[in-house]
Structures are given as structure tokens and as C-alpha cells.
């Protein structure tokens, strides 16, 4: 008699992997974008200090990417 073992993945585990990917990948994306913008902001600020405010705001704008990732992750869990 042949017995068949069926392995099943825990749906909660898959959900957790999905959530981790959502946060992790968007984290990388916003880090990359912030790196570029931050470098440019520092370059401009080195010449003109009054650009600090604008530079700071522009640098954190890509942060929204990871926030969306976080929202998606929370919805998944």
C-alpha cells in the first residue's frame, strides 16, 4: 500500500513572507532613491546653505515608498 504524504504550507507563513517582501523591497527602493537625492542635496548645500530645508524635504520624499510597503504588509497580516 502506497501512502501519500501531502505537505502543506502554513498560510500564515506565506502571508508573513509576502509582508516581509513588501517591506524589505520597498525599503531597498527608498534607500536607493534617498541616497541619490541626499547626495545631490549635500552637493547643493555645500555651496548654498539656505537649501538645507528644501534638501531635507526632497530627501525624505521617497520615504513614501516604504510607507506604502508597510501599509501593504499590515493589510496582509
Amino acid at each position, binding site marked *: 500500500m502506497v501512502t501519500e504524504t501531502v505537505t502543506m504550507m502554513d498560510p500564515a507563513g506565506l502571508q508573513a513572507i509576502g509582508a516581509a517582501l513588501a517591506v524589505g523591497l520597498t525599503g531597498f527602493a527608498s534607500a536607493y532613491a534617498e541616497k*541619490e537625492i541626499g*547626495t545631490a542635496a549635500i*552637493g547643493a548645500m555645500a555651496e548654498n546653505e539656505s537649501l538645507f530645508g528644501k534638501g531635507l524635504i526632497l530627501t525624505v520624499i521617497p520615504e513614501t515608498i516604504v510607507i506604502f510597503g508597510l501599509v501593504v504588509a499590515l493589510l496582509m497580516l
Partner: protein
Amino acid sequence: MRLLQKFKRGYSSDSKGNTNYAYTIPRVRAMKSKLLPKETYPRLMNMSIAEITRFIGESGYKEDVDELALTYDGVDLIEHSLNRNLSVTFRKLLNISEGEVHFLISEYLRQYDIWNIKTILRGKYCGASTKETLEAIVAGGTLTYTFLSGLAAKGSYEEVLSEFEGTEYYPILKDYNGTNLSDIENQLDKLYYAGLFAVAGGSKSKDRKLFAKFIRAGIDIKNLMILFRLKKAGITNPQMSNLMVEGGLEIEPKDIEKLMPLSFEEFIQELDSYSYWKEISDVVNPGMQSLIDVETRLKKYRLKSAASFSHVYPLSIVPIMDYMLTKQNEVNNLRIIVRGKETNLSDEVIREQLVI
């Protein structure tokens, strides 16, 4: 950090490595925004030399004026401050750039080495004093100010030439016999452009292609100005085409061959087929007395096209080249105003010369 940069650049420190455009370009753009705006020049025209010195001393040239105020005064102070500022600015560009762009800028700045060698030889040729020669020195290239001032202080041109032994300039300089200065100057210029093309043509990188295009557009303007001067002087000898620089974007050697034997009137008619014509058509006519208007127009066009070129390729070497050109122009304009005022030229004459 420096060690890290060195590793990134590689040991040869020339064309290897990537350029950090995200840092360099915004910084250069911020530097460009600090240049004197167009509206400043009419104001400067109404000032005396002392007022101009003060104005410049409160603008981007503050450090230079402060430093040199102990040694020089009046027009000399402005002249030296402008030259010092120009060389400090170009050195700064070299310091904030890395990789390919750093290498290309340093090649471009060789024009100042050539300029300085020419200035010193001219100084020796006409027996100028060391002080007079130093006024025209811009240590923006690879040769340092200390080395150049040492050369300017030498007694004869032979001593100057011996200092260049072993350099790439020596094969040309060794033929200088005290009389053939224009020939040597011409050859030095050609060496400069040959060097640039050797650098730009060697690789297929985007930066080098844009660099070559930028240089070639500049050569066109230069050639046009030489042609205008030759034609105005009534020179039609095809032999004179050795004064021209080869490698222009639109005006190629075959065009030069075609334009060379023409008279001034025919030359103007022929120019109709080039894109530069629309920029200069309203100031060019067969009976024109002075070429100042045409040359100013061409220079203006060069600046304008460099600026728009830099907007087409925002993350490339072009915005840096555009900045260098604009900075050189600012310094030239200030020098024109100051020297014009010193020699009591009328405001009208000075205004004609300005490239705004």
C-alpha cells in the same frame, strides 16, 4: 574616505571609475547660480574702479580680494583677484569631481597651461617685467602658480624653454628661436586640440562623446572668428588655412578649403548655408567696419547653446563645461569693464565688448 576614493578611482587616477553625478552636478549648478546676474553689468558700468573693487570684494571674489589687497591695488588688484578666483574655481571643480569627468576636466584645463606658456614667452618676447607677466597668468591647469612665477622671473626665453625639457610641450618649444612666436603659439594650440581629440575619440563612453561634441562646437566658433578676421583683412591665401583648427562640428576642413579663397562679400554670402548665420545675419554686412559685434554675437551664441545643451544632458559632463564657459565669460566681462574704465574708453565702446 580618501583611501576609499582612491580605490574607487583605481591607481592610475585617470579615466577609470564612475562619476558621482548626483553630487557634482547639483554643486556645480549651485555654483553657477552664484555667478553675477546680467543686471549687474549695467550697474558696474556706472561705478568707478574703487567702487567696482569694493563691489567685487563683497561678492564671490571676497576671499581673493582680501588676500591680494595687501600686495596690489586698483586695477591690478581686480585683475589678480579675477585670475586667482578663476584658478581656484577650476581647481575646486577638479576636487569635487571624480573618475572620467575629473580626467576630462583636467584635459580641458590644459588650455591654461598653454595660455600661460604663451603669456610667458610673449612677455619675454616684448621684454615685459615679471610683474606685468604675472598679471596675465591664470594657474588653472596642471602647472602651478609657483612654477609659473618662477618661469616669469627667468631672464631669457632659453631659460624658460629649458624648464620644459621632457614635457609634451618641449618638441614644439625647442624650435622657438626668439622670432617665430606666432608659429609656436599656433602649434601649441593645435597640440592642445589634438590632445583633446585623442582623449575624446578613444572611448565610446557617453561622456567622451558629449565632451567631443562640446569641444567641436567651440572649434566652429573659433574658426568662424578667425575666418572673419582673415576675410576682413582681405587675406585669401589658401596657405592661411593652417591657422584654423581642424575638427569643427559644422565647418569641416573641406568647408574651410572652400571658404578660404573667397573675398569678404562672397564669404558672407556663403555663410548663409550654416546654422550660425541666423545668429549673426543682422549684424553682418559687406560694408561693416568693425568685427566686434559679430564676435560678441558668436560668443553669446556659444554660451546660449552650451546652456541649452546642458539642459538636454543634465547628468553628464556638459553642465560642468557650461559652468566653466560661463565663469570664464564673467571674468572676461569684468576685466573688459575694468580695463575699459582704466583707459577711459566710452561706456558705449565698453558695452559693445561685453558678452551678456
